[in-house]
């Protein structure tokens, strides 16, 4: 390598770290992340989950307000708690998966609530209906990974989840708890 090129490259190499994005967590570890939900049927909590989803995020605890998240759920991967339910909920009255194969959450703002608590607000779209959603979450660092855990409630009828005879909230409650647990590695 010529002396000239070293002279030219050296300043660039020194600049490189400063030009990289702020330190933060961006690489979601899918196999350690989960999106679950809890509904109430006849007063009894029934758990479910989504097996396939794509989560992207950028979060630096030093600058939480710059955090961003985007979650895309493959609705066909739903486990609603039983075989009967799994066959039922992909249908038109529930998630109408054929017409609406994905549900998404796109964050708009993230703010710190103090301590390890934060809150993300954004647009939640399920079955083609979009509603504002606000989810408090906690963040902790664990073995070089960032762990995000949060829970928020939606009203299923806001999204036309469970139409027709299923709109009776006396049998299946309107409120559904959504729980997420996302593990992400630091930016490379």
């Amino acid at each position: 390598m010529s002396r000239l090129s070293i002279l030219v490259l050296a300043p660039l190499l020194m600049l490189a770290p400063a030009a990289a994005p702020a330190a933060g967590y961006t690489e979601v570890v899918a196999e350690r992340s989960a999106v679950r939900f809890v509904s109430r049927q006849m007063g009894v909590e029934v758990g479910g989950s989504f097996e396939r989803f794509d989560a992207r995020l950028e979060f630096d605890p030093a600058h939480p307000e710059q955090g961003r998240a985007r979650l895309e759920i493959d609705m066909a991967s739903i486990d609603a708690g039983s075989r009967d339910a799994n066959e039922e909920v992909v249908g038109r009255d529930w998630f109408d998966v054929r017409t609406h194969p994905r549900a998404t959450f796109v964050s708009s703002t993230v703010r710190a609530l103090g301590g390890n608590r934060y809150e993300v607000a954004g647009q939640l779209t399920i079955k083609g209906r979009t509603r504002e959603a606000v989810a408090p979450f906690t963040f902790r660092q664990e073995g070089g990974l960032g762990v995000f855990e949060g829970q928020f409630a939606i009203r299923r009828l806001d999204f036309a989840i469970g139409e027709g005879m299923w709109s009776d909230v006396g049998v299946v409650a309107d409120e559904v708890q959504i729980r997420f647990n996302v593990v992400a590695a630091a930016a490379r």
Partner: protein
Amino acid sequence: MTPVRYTAVAIVLHWLMAALLLGLFAVGLYMVDLPLSPRKLQVYSWHKWAGVTAFAFVLVRLAWRAGHPPPPLPASMAVWERAAAAVAHGALYVLMLAIPLSGWLMSSAMGFQTVWFGVLPIPDLIGKNEELGDLLRIIHISLNYTLAGLVLLHIGAALKHRLINRDDVFGRMWPSGIRKT
């Protein structure tokens, strides 16, 4: 002679239990073939609530029975008849306990906790495990048909005492207190 009738409490408990079991059995047969619907979820919940109630009833009956032994069987009964009656009654009690237990365990294995009347949660003794749930379902159904067979035997034996032997055995549990004449 010692009293020939069961106590009034035992008679009331017996007939309430009979009505409850008949209802539970009929509802059980009806609900399993329902297509998934809000009605099905309701009926399953009712069945489970009634099943827990039946279990509690059996415990009450056993407690009462412990303090109030049944009246003696007539001296005219043969030893084998007494033995058969004891075994059949014992089996009825075992099934009345085992059936709700199997239903509760099945429900847990299927992933549905039992919450009595939607208010009192009964803990899940076992975790969700659908294969175990399928097995418990078969056990629950088999025990129920066994109970149904035993109940028919029980009714047949009671009627035999009434119509053929013409002894006190039927009357000691019949609500209106039919006596040997």
